[in-house]
């Protein structure tokens, strides 16, 4: 195996089966841990298999689109896009306007998506540009951008709407006369995508159309990886300097990856909310980023590598844990709050673990590369 950077060829070693198993366990620590946690908690919770199945199908259909939007920035080396919340906010603004204009059902959903596109693009460009100015710290910058843009979102939705931005129906405005209420009912489009084609198997409702849309997104991502832009992004993700030397506009490619992710997050948030049927104007988007990233990591993804398989494995395991934790907590400790805190703790711990593993791997790889380079130089010296 030749190291691309140093040209050093390491001698092939035979890997024993035991080491293979250990290697597998080490690479997939997080999903394995989660399977263990679920295996313990599910019987404790007392839920029936049918109930869990129905819940999981709903949650997969609701969340997958959002989690899929995280894949492209990882490909481009931007790490975990904590800024996906920006897209979620754009989608919410679209939904607020659409419900005010009384556009119902699927057309309402599509219109909300269309409205969210320019907002997402604007926010994505802003986020991408700022991340470019903070190379090496993209994730924490995206994370803080969340709070910053949330402030601007509140400025618009809590203050400008009803005053500067005309809202037709006073029923969604706060009693004080401006600003949108805490919840906006999306009854008019509730489950419109889900119900479009829905089949029931054994009492479990499967929203076929939603899954079709998710499948289309997966196909898009697979196709995108093969396009020139997609290849450029992978090159930038591997090594920015090498890509720059190859003539790729690194800054622009990075920004485009964030823009695509933000637009997709906007669509995903709309799909999520049409399933919920209700928009919590100020809190819906706040935890969504963290939970989606946690789910992706649970599926075995890392900060620099994520596949579509990770998305679906992750959403299943993560949401299984999420559903059974409170009841398991009640069964174990007599307090369901413990279960609820536990699932929050596990979400954060999973992200912490993934970040730590990524950083330690990065440092090991760079020190390994440095050692190999030194070795190669030494060999060169000796051969002179």
């Amino acid at each position, binding site marked *: 195996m030749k190291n691309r950077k140093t040209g050093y060829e390491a001698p092939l070693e035979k890997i024993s089966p035991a080491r293979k198993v250990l290697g597998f366990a080490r690479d997939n620590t997080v999903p394995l841990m989660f399977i263990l946690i679920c295996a313990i908690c599910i019987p404790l919770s007392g839920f029936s298999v049918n109930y869990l199945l129905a819940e999981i199908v709903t949650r997969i259909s609701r969340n997958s689109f959002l989690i899929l939007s995280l894949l492209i920035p990882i490909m481009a080396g931007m790490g975990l896009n904590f800024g996906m919340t920006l897209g979620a906010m754009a989608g919410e603004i679209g939904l607020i306007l659409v419900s005010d204009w009384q*556009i119902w*059902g*699927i057309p*309402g959903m*599509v219109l909300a998506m269309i409205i969210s596109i320019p907002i997402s693009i604007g926010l994505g460009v802003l986020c991408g540009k700022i991340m470019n100015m903070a190379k090496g710290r993209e994730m924490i910058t995206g994370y803080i951008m969340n709070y910053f843009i949330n402030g601007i979102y509140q400025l618009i939705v809590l203050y400008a709407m009803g005053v500067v931005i005309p809202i037709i129906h006073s029923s969604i405005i706060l009693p004080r006369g401006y600003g949108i209420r*805490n919840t906006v009912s999306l009854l008019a489009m509730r489950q419109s995508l889900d119900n479009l084609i829905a089949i029931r198997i054994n009492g479990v409702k499967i929203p076929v159309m939603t899954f079709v849309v998710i499948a289309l997104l997966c196909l898009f991502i697979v196709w995108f990886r093969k396009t020139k832009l997609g290849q450029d992004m992978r090159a930038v993700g591997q090594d920015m300097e090498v890509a720059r030397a190859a003539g790729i506009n690194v800054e622009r490619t990075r920004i485009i990856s964030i823009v695509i992710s933000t637009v997709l997050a906007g669509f995903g948030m709309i799909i999520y909310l049409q399933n919920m049927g209700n928009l919590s104007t100020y809190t819906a988007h706040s935890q969504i980023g963290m939970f989606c990233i946690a789910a992706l990591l649970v599926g075995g993804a890392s900060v620099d590598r994520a596949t579509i398989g990770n998305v679906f494995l992750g959403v299943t395991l993560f949401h299984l844990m999420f559903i059974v934790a409170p009841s398991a907590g009640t069964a174990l400790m007599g307090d369901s709050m413990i279960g609820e805190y536990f699932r929050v703790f596990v979400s954060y711990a999973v992200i912490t673990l993934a970040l730590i593993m990524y950083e330690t791997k990065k440092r090991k790889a760079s020190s390994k590369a440095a050692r190999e380079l030194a070795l190669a130089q030494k060999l060169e010296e000796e051969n002179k």
Partner: protein
Amino acid sequence: MKISRTTWFRIAAVAFILLLAGLMMIIGRGHTIYLDDKTLEKDGKTWQALYRIDASVAGSTQEPQTLYARERVLFTVMGQKATLHLQYMEAKGGDKVPVDVSIRIPYGMDGVIVNLPALLAGESQDVFLSEFITVPDVGDTSAEVVVTDEFAVTDI
């Protein structure tokens, strides 16, 4: 200024999306239709309420409903045109007369009231159609506290 192929594609894409948005706004506009079986007096003319009407609206999520004199039923419908399938009985024990009528709903009105006696008498839209004006609920003026707590543990 030469317009390159890429720019044409972009303009076409934007135009397509705008057209799509316009289309969505038209076909997705939802209205609530209130059907009244009430005696209507307008411009000196009177239309008597009918004994009983069985009504359904094509494409509405609601089931067919029956209304007697002085009653009102509600249907929700998407789009600007509503097709009403009516079966009315003029007096008790009379024949059931089936009528299908299509009405156009003005885009700007959220809710419309259709006076069925006038409609069935063949009158024009400005006679039988009127706007349903919602009076905002003034009762609940308790200050609504806006919850912006980002860290509340919520279900996902």
